Structure formats: structure tokens, C-alpha cells
């Protein structure tokens, strides 16, 4: 009698799995974005919006 076909999880890459795992949250580090970076992003977005409020000053021909 034929055996039931079995699925097997593939181990990719041909190298052993990396085993040294560090939980960064337990070390007190979470990858949230700093206030300085948030401010920099906000400032650049506010500046980009000036394209529209200043549009009438320009004509490209």
C-alpha cells in the first residue's frame, strides 16, 4: 500500500540557522522614530506644500 505523501518544510539557503537571538524590547530598545526625526519630516512636508501656495508665481515654458 502506498504511503501518504508528506509535506516537508524547506530549509532555505544551505546554511545552518542563526541561533543567537536578542529581544531588543527586553533590552529597553524599541525602534520608534525620535522626536527630532519626526520634526524634520514634518518640516520638509510643510515646505513641499509651498509648491501649491506659490504655484502662481511660476510658469515653465
Amino acid at each position, binding site marked *: 500500500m502506498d504511503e501518504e505523501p508528506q509535506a516537508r518544510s524547506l530549509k*532555505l*539557503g*544551505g*546554511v545552518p*540557522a*542563526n541561533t*543567537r*537571538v*536578542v*529581544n*531588543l*524590547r527586553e*533590552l*529597553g*530598545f*524599541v*525602534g*520608534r*522614530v*525620535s522626536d*527630532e*526625526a*519626526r520634526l*524634520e*519630516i514634518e518640516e*520638509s512636508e510643510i*515646505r*513641499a506644500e*509651498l*509648491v*501649491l501656495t*506659490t*504655484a*502662481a*508665481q*511660476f*510658469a*515653465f*515654458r
Partner: protein
Amino acid sequence: MRVKLEALPLDTNGAQLLRNILVGERSNPAADALIAHVFELGARYAVLEHPYTDVDYSADYQTFYAVAFKDYPRQTQRLHLFSQDVTDVLEGPFEAQTEGLKQRGYLGFVVIRPISQGPIGRTVLNYPVPDDGLIVRRAARARNRVHLAGAELHVEGAPFIQQEAKVGACAQAAIWMAALPVHLRHRSPRFTIAEITRLAVTPTDAVLSRALPAGSKGLNPAHMIRALRGMGHQPLFDVFKAVGVSVPTGYAASMVLRYLDSSLPVILAMDHVGHAVTAVGYVETPGGALASGETLDVFTRALLVHDDQRGPYRLLPLRADDVDHLPRSRLMMHDDEPLTVETAVSHMFVPLPPRVFLPAHRADIIARDFLRRQAAELGPEIVAMTAIASQEAADTVERFYAAIQQGGFVRRTYLTSAARYRHHLAQSNASPSVKLELLDRTLPHYVWVTELIPRVSVAGPGTARPIVGHLVVNATSSSDIDSDLLVAHTPHMVTHRDINSATTTLGEIDERAVLIDEDHPYQGRLRR
């Protein structure tokens, strides 16, 4: 009616012959630049095909010229350029022509419109090949399939077109030059200049209506954004010069280069000359950083620009210092002075793919911020943990974090699809242990990748600069900035940020690092 092919040997009088065909006796700097470019490419032979029905001119004809009182021809001519004589191939058996012409060095084609104010229609020519050590990155290249009689030819270049002043101005030409490579590469819808003008001027306004036909005397930034959106792109835009706007030195170049390095053409506007052009590539130095800064512009001498008035593949130096390192004949000039990105570029517009919601500068800031925070808050602990397995690896990690805090790496941030990211990583010489961590990560369709390049590094036409790590940011994000960064490879460590983890409480991101024993620098992604 039959199509006629005329053979044109480009010998000593070749330039004059081409000029007569293109513009006759009229002054036309774009035509002169185009002719100089084809001779620099090594053109020795041309074939003039006529009549040729060109889709873009047909749209212009239908929009304006068909209803003009003066008679305008409905057909164009198409000029094909080769680096060798092709008469024996074309006069030989038809079935051998495709292979035969391929061997004779096809350099591209120029559609010649029957309108004197803008005769250069759709044109695709090979990119320039500099002979002075500089590297041309053909960012906006697209493969064009061309048929000459029964033969199929290919040219990989950035499409160029001249404005013809009745259906569109430079702004429409710049949009067309930016959008066509995206259409050819990504099968997005194709738009003629007539259609771009219609999208830009609908609904019309007083500014547009000052010109007849409306929009033929130029567009302002709002009209350009409207056209790009109507064409199905996410119109990303920015302003670098205007009342109340100031940006740091190098900022405009760094912004433009991130999109170019993502194979996206960038429309550049220059307010003080009232003109718009399209950046289609850039010119890189093979050596280390040329200027202070931490972004790709420090390795870059110039943008390669299609200017409908000055010609294809012009050079727009980034800084005044770059001018003397570039061939003067290709420089963008105004009143006999070279224009530079730093002094001239006031706006940029990018035809982003519809599903990309995160701009490049935000991805770059997020990557930089993460690295600096990790170096400052966690550096010593990571060094100590790495030292358990290898002191040599720990020393590498310590030097890396010190360099991060001192701005010792150049960040190269570009957009790619998750599939292309995985493909290039799999093909790279990165450590197999690093690939193992990264290649089975679930990722969104588009990601921003930030490569970390040592400031002192070497690049070549066929090689990218070596990198010590890279970060991956979700390009389809638009809401929670804290969940944009997905993964970071830094020396001897891969940080996973699993924003869809089943093991954390609602809203928390699973943040784990995997320490890698075997790690080394590897080649970044090559932009040929």
C-alpha cells in the same frame, strides 16, 4: 504608397547632412546638440525612413495642425543611426536583416516632424559613454523596440522630444520625457503631449488662458501636478527655491538622486530661467566622496538631463566645483554661464507608482534615525554580545557604531519592489547567514532600501560600491511612522521589526536582533 528608405553615409559632411535633414538653415541648439551626441556615440551611417506615422505627432496633428488654415503634412520621417554601413544588409535577404542590423551597431532613432518650430519628435538614442573615467548611471533607461522594414531592432535609452509650441511647451515635453520610460518599463498607460496638455488645462484657469491655445505658453507647478495625477501617477513634488523657502547645501541634489536611483525620471523646474527639463540619469565619480554629507550626491558630479531646448543628455553639474570636471560641450548653459543643481533647480516633480505612499526623504530620515539611536542606546551592549563569539567581529561592530555617530557612511536610498530586492540580495556576495535572515521575510510590494556605503569606496561602470549593511522601509505605508522600518542589516546583526507579529500585544512591534557570526561587506545594487 510605399515606404522609402534612403541610405546616408555620415562622412566628413555627415553633420551638415543631418542638420539639413533636421532643421535646414534654421537655428536650433537642440538639433546641434543631438547631432554632436550621435557622432560622439560613433554614428557612421544613417537610414531615413519616410513616410512614418508617429503616434505622438499624429496626436498633435489631430489636436491642432489638422484644423490649421496652412497645410501641414500628416506624416513624419524617421532617421535611424548606425555605427557601420548597413546598405548590404538592407539590400540582402529579408530574413537575415534583423541579425545583420544588430551586428552593425544600432544607436537609436529620431522622428522628424514637418513643423519648423520644433522638428525633433520622439527620439531615443543610446546614453553617452564618457571617456574620462566618469560613470554614467542610466537611471531612466527603457528598452525600445523598433521596426525597420521587416527587421526588429532595440535601443536602450531615455526618450527625448522637443516642444513644438502649439500643442505644448517645455513643461509638457518634460512630463512626456518623464512618463514615457515609466510606461515602457512598467506598462503604465501612454500619453501624448496633446493628452498631457488636455489633462493639465482641465479645468482651465486665467493663467492658462493667457495663451492660445490654452497651455501652449507654459504650465505652473499646480498644472504639472494635475497632469501627472491625471496620467495615473502619484505626483510627488518639492520646492527648493521660492519666497520663504530655504534648504541646506546639497539638499536638492540628494532629493532628486533618490528617485533617479530608483529608475524614476525626475522633472526639474528652474524658476529663474522659467524652464523645465527632465533628469534621466547621473554621472558618478569612480572614487570616494567629493563633498561633505551622508547622501548619494557626495559621489555624484552631475545629472544627465533632457532639455527640449538645449538637446538630449545635457549635463547639469551638482555644484560649481564639478563644472571643470565635466565636458563643457554638454553643460547646461544660460547667458554663457553653466547652470548647476545648487543654483538653478527650484522644483522637482516625480511620477511615482500608484502604490507608493512614502516619500524617499522620509525613508532616508527613518533609516538614519534608527541607526543613530541604536548606536547611542544599544551600541556597547551589542558589542559585548558580539564579543562572546568573536572579538574580531565585536571590534568591527564597535567601529561601525562609532562611524555612524560621526557620519562616516553614505546612505544610498532607493525604491524597489520586494521581488527585485530579494533577487539582487540573493545574487549578491553577502554572507549566506545574512541572506538566510532576509530572504524569507514577508515584505510589502514596494520597499525603500537604504544601503550604507563607506565614504572612501570605489565604483565602476559594471560594479556598485561595496556596502556594510542596509535597511528596508515600507514604501506603501502612510500612517504610523513607527512601523515604517521593517528590517536592518548592520555588521554582524540583522534587526527584525515584525509589525504583524502574532506574539505581541496590539500595537506593539516584535523587535528582535539576530547576531551573525559570519559577515562581511558586499556589493550594493548595481544601477547600470
